[in-house]
């Protein structure tokens, strides 16, 4: 199972241009990359959120495969229904076009996944549907106006936890959804970014090939919510990995593999400095917050190394 760039370039682009994503959005790039690997025998579900809104404004759709949106918090449950219908209709010989296998992919942002849709996601994963759930994690509720989510990192400015004269943005650390998904003991869980195209395509391939549910958490730098120049979204994604803020790793049947270990991790402050959402943290008096952020990243990385060693031991 080796991803071949040449082959990918020849695959049909299943997300048409002309969708309404913002200039510099890395989310549509994530969708396109996933669909290049998944191919046309796929049904896509979208939770209410940026990528749903920008790809399906009636009477237009950017989707060249079938797509369903129902609501915000229920994408996993909705796709679990589609997947079950596929199995039932295959069993009774009533599929409109005979297929041995189809891909069922649910997309949600961090709002639809970490927060309001967590129950629906957990249920679908536990039930063992043959589906891939993809979280495009842009670390806040961007679609509704950049409100904090449980994926927002400590100190980030958002519209509901803004930096002010007495508060310095979000006061809590982000929750580790990827590990929550690992705890479901499903066949495949992984993290990646749109910059690491080969890593991403390989992970999509593995996720779709496994027998049972799979979960991908994909960091999606957001030019509007993170406040960086529209040209550097991919660079922000790359540096999130080089700082160990967003490690590339996968968990196959409980076995951890870190797919990229930076030779010398870059300081988290370098990455934060490029993003307006962290601007206030560089004011005098907030040094401790930068230190706390660095310590959090380093601690999480140490834990991940231990998990890798333990699960392969």
């Amino acid at each position, binding site marked *: 199972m080796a991803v071949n760039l040449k082959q990918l370039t020849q695959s049909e682009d299943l997300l048409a241009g002309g969708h309404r994503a913002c200039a510099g959005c890395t989310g549509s790039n994530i969708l396109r990359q996933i669909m290049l690997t998944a191919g046309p025998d796929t049904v896509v579900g979208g939770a209410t959120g940026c990528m749903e809104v920008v790809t399906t404004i009636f009477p237009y759709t950017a989707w060249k495969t079938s797509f369903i949106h129902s609501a915000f918090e229920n994408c996993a449950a909705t796709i679990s229904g589609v997947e079950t219908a596929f199995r*039932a209709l295959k069993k009774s010989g009533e599929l409109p076009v005979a297929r041995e296998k189809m891909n069922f992919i649910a997309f949600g942002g961090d709002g639809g996944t970490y927060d309001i849709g967590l129950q629906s996601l957990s*249920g679908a994963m536990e039930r063992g549907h043959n589906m891939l759930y993809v979280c495009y994690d842009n670390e806040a509720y961007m679609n509704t106006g950049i409100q904090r989510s449980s994926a927002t990192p400590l100190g980030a400015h958002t519209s509901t936890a803004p930096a002010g004269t007495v508060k310095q943005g979000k006061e809590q650390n982000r929750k580790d959804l990827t590990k929550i998904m690992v705890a479901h003991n499903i066949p495949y869980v992984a993290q990646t970014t749109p910059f690491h195209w080969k890593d991403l395509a390989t992970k999509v391939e593995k996720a779709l090939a496994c027998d049972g549910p799979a979960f991908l958490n994909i960091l999606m730098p957001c030019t509007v919510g993170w406040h960086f120049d529209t040209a550097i979204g991919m660079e922000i994604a790359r540096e999130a990995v080089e700082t160990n803020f967003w490690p590339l790793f996968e968990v196959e049947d409980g076995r951890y593999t870190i797919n990229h270990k930076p030779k010398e991790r870059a300081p988290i402050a370098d990455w934060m400095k490029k993003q307006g959402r962290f601007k206030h943290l560089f004011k005098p008096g907030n040094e401790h917050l930068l230190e706390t952020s660095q310590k959090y990243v380093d601690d999480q990385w140490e834990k991940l190394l231990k998990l890798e060693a333990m699960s392969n031991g």
Partner: protein
Amino acid sequence: MQQKLVALSGNEAVAYAFKQARPHVAAAFPITPQTEMMHKYAEFVANGESATEMILVESEHSAMSAAVGSAAAGARTFTATSSAGFALMWEVVYIAASLRLPICMAMVNRALSGNINIHCDHSDSMGGRDAGWIHLFSENAQESYDNGLMAWRIAEHMDVRLPVMVNYDGFIISHTADALHMLPDEAAWKFIGPYKHKYTLLDVENPITVGPLDLTDYYFEHKTSQLAAYDKVPGVVQAVSDEFGKLTGRHYGFAEEYLLDDAEMVMVILGSSAGTAKDVIDEYRAKGVKAGLLKLRMFRPFPAAYVAKVLAGRKAVAVLDRSASFGGFGGPVFTEVRSAMYGQKVPVHGYIYGLGGRDFDLRQVATVLDNLQKVAAGGQIEDVNLLGVRL
């Protein structure tokens, strides 16, 4: 048609009816008093009597969501719930109707919280009366079973394509063993037939987008086309019921008209309470009181023209609601009936009874009939009255 006489609870009867429709998928989460219905269905599947794929979800919100996904994929799909379970589905209940998905649902009527109460009233389904589903009500296990068969034909009719809920009273019907006639499986299948969908997500050669963002430029037109669908429902309900009547000898319409021909006074009621009301009406008839009963079977879409016609010229009408509309002018059935009677000089009064499973007894019916006589004679009573409650 040779039919088998059996003794079943309402829950079992509806489980059998749904099984005879050979649905592809069922998605449900347990809640009292619906539980036994899904237990029975799970047994069918476990014993190989049904090939239905069950999605045993973690909440009713996911039950309705999975049902939407399944139906949009072209599978015949059902769910079942009660009370708070339906309330949790809320958002997706509207979506199912708006996407024109012919899902069938067993709605085992139970009071809404709070305070929490597991017994029958109609506050659950009534809360969803504007969500776009077709609401059928049943008086007993037989009618629950019959509605459970006809629901599929109505929901899946190409002019309709709307979800149907089969309402039957929690515990009073759901948990009471009752005698009923069942169609043989083959006859039921011949009546219902296979599901023919119009669109499916699974047709890889004709991909579709379902549930797009619909803004100021199109949403209203889409809602208008949805509204137009409800005009088609009464005709389809009647046609399906007529066909069913020929097959089984059990005849249904929008309502059952009990001793209505010469009735000067009419009670309007839903569900199991009709049985109690009929008994007392019989007693009053024996005393020479010209009373009758209109037992509504189809509450949504509300058959306003039919109701206006059937109640025209009566001396007094009493509408009984097993739910309250807090802050509203009487219960939901009363509001509809009074509105349908606009322009007629027939006095229409409302009653709220039986909340949280409070027994609907013979004395309450007698009170209503006594009041009807008083009103018919020109007397005055309150617009909206309470029955069977300590004040």
